[in-house]
């Protein structure tokens, strides 16, 4: 197993638990994998604890329990990016409005 695969990510339980089928991760679309990759890369490269992301993920799920799981990941990642000062909320919104297909 690659050392990039964090045990604490695999072990997440409760509402934050990764969606699995037969024990394996499932993604419904490519962007979901990119969001997972970004969250892990950001935590890794900034030397953060996984809990710094996980707590935001749980908060995002609690804020809107009916929202699809990886949309909550995206909200949590946005929150962490803003918290770290990487970008402002307005900057993320305006960039999203101008992304080209």
């Amino acid at each position, binding site marked *: 197993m690659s050392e990039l695969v964090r045990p604490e990510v695999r072990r997440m339980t409760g509402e934050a638990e990764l969606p699995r089928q037969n024990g394996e991760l499932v993604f419904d*679309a490519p962007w979901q994998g990119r969001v997972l990759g970004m969250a892990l890369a950001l935590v890794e*490269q900034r030397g953060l604890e996984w809990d710094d992301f996980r707590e935001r993920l749980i908060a995002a799920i609690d804020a809107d329990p009916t929202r*699809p799981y990886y949309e909550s990941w*995206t909200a949590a990642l946005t929150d962490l990016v803003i918290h770290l000062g990487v970008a402002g909320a307005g900057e993320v919104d305006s960039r*999203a409005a101008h992304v080209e297909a």
Partner: protein
Amino acid sequence: MSDHGHHPETLSDVERRARALEELLIEKGIVSAEFIDQVVDAYAQDIGPMNGAKVVARAWVDPEYKQRLLADGTAAIAELGIGGPEGDHIVAVENTPDVHNVVVCTLCSCYPWPVLGLPPNWYKSPPYRSRMVREPRAVLAEMGCEVPDEVEIRVWDSSAEVRYLVLPARPPGTDGASEDELAGTVTRDAMIGVAR
């Protein structure tokens, strides 16, 4: 431009936000695209393709299952509890001593997610998508997959309607192996057809 049945070129709001975050993280030098790729790849290699490996191993040990898989891939993978939004139209193509199959998506990156997990980064690269159709033997050789001249190469173009899964040949000398052991020998690359 028509999308030829591939993914439409419209993005949902959450896709736009994901793309915006990736662009900002990369532009500001926080993380590199390569590092995100590496992380995604690590998860893909670790946990992604195992569903496909189970399908292949079952086909190797159960000839009747293999016939069902080749006749109706979607129904056969559903027998193993596998399926999902991007696994609706799975067609399995069998490697034989005379035929080697390889899968590409020439227009975008249609891929059988439920069986193969995350697509590798090169699968989406323009050179792979264009050259695999024109000169598959050369591209396969560059990827370390030498196909003998006498073996025909068939290139399958995935789309939103049909997603192909290569059924590799069972390795020689594995007569006594269990289904689980066999599944452990099946790689993602073999199920795309860029390894033998």
